[in-house]
């Protein structure tokens, strides 16, 4: 992941920024907000284009872009008729920065499957529900019979465990 925290300085950075952030923005729109793929790509493109006029004003690029794609995704659903989840649900679904980092470090399906294999059955089930079946935190909580906030903690804990175990496995290999 390319991380530029300063305004664009020259031509060559433009495409680097686009390549570096496009994928992250699409991922957020698709997986956090369930925006359809093609629409998510359009939103990500518009976010990056809209940043261009603000490059002198934006102090930290990454949070700005993530904020913009989150608002864009909500706006998409407002326009397209889905009932937006209550603020509490949105807060529960909001990925914490540590989780985002873990997602960034698990780059493909193979890695994900291998990571899951390293886990105990409960964590495997939780992450399967979250990332393979696309359940919301609230749905997972209902299926596990726990409170949503606890389910959210479990997901984060399992992701961290997956990262640790998968990382250790990689080192051994």
């Amino acid at each position, binding site marked *: 992941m390319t991380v530029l925290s300063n305004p664009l300085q020259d031509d060559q950075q*433009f495409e680097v920024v686009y*390549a570096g952030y496009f994928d992250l923005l699409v991922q957020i729109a698709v997986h956090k907000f369930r925006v359809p793929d093609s629409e998510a*790509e359009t939103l990500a493109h518009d976010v990056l284009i*809209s940043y261009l006029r603000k490059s*002198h004003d934006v102090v930290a690029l990454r949070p700005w872009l993530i904020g913009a794609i989150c608002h864009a995704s909500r706006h998409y659903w407002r326009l397209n008729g889905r009932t937006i989840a209550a603020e509490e649900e949105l807060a529960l679904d909001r990925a914490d920065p540590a989780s985002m980092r873990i997602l960034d470090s698990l780059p493909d399906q193979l890695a994900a499957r291998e990571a899951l294999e390293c886990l105990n059955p409960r964590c495997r089930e939780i992450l399967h529900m979250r*990332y393979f079946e696309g359940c919301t935190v609230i749905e997972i909580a209902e299926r596990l019979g726990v409170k949503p906030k606890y389910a959210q903690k479990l997901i984060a804990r399992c992701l961290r465990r997956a990262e640790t175990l998968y990382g250790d496995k990689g080192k051994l290999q």
Partner: protein
Amino acid sequence: MSHEEKLFPFDRGRRRPDPAKVAEFAATARKLQQEREGAAGIATRLLGSTPFAEWPRLAQREELRNSGALDELSREVAARVDRVPLESLAIAELSTTIADSLAADSYPVVVLAQIRAQAWKDRGLSLCYLARYSEALDAFDRAEGYLRPFGTLAHDRAIVRLARATTLQEANRFDESIALLQECTKIFEDHGDTRRQLLCANAEGALLHRMKRFREACDAYLALLPMAEKINDRTLLASIHNNIGQSSTEIGDFKTAEAHVNQAIAIFTELGQPLRIAASELARGRMFVRRGEIERGINHLHAVREQYLRQNLVEEAGLCGLEIVEAQLARGASIEAEAFAWQIVREFTAAQLNVRAITALGYLSEAIAARKASAATVQNVRHFIRSLRKRPDAEFVATA
């Protein structure tokens, strides 16, 4: 559905941006950057070499018809809005004319919406400084209208709404203002925009002050200082100091008030913002009066009034004059108070300000002559004159 087909979250490496989109992005980036570099100093130069009355004709100048030049004009609007609001408005009108007439294919639609919205937001802000609130709100409507179709422009929309919240506050529409401020704070926070988060918090403090919740306002402002110092926004820092000074005066904490007003004046002086200096000096004059140094306060307020009159801001000068009238009444100088009140009436009449304001001032002068006026009478008139900004047709109701 196979297991692989259901698997969606970890397919990150597969998503490649459309090369055509990347090319559009890069081309737009280069174009905006070139325009930014090419426009450096151009707006200042053209405005400086063109008579004020001919500024609208600058809309035809090709070198101003691009994003970079419009950004320059926007900076000119902001730089003059305090000192010479009429010039600021003229530049903002020029910007909106240019922005609205840019070809539809000159920029990607998102960028075009940003350009136009910024121009209309600036126009709204200039109108607000001239106390033309209804027109200002219409300008913000235009700005938001451009942004509405684009969910990606939440940050731009929040910037417009912050300006709208400020205007609503000036027009005494507090509830609407605070709701907007809270909404904007969240959006700025989501985007990691600390500076504008502070602007919202500062505006909320101002709202508490207007609602006479002075101690809460003071605490709210004091809490902002560390963050304002950290991001080193001098204008915002001065504004917060000034606000702490005003709220502290109201709760009788004159030591804190004086320290912070002095800091505000020092920073505004360093920044070269005479109208803001005048507003802080007015706060200092009021503080002198409140802590019993009436003579010193009156002299100070006279100097501030002169400054407003030099800028042709008759209404502000009149409101400052009413502070003097109130101070004179406080020391029992009814004859001077009456004479001064009549002077304000003459200034308002000559400037053809709202006839209702003149009526209220006339009532005050007569009440002083009849020895029936008190500090509360003056405050009522001052409040009424301010309220005319929101409701120009309001009727004056006399109080004892």
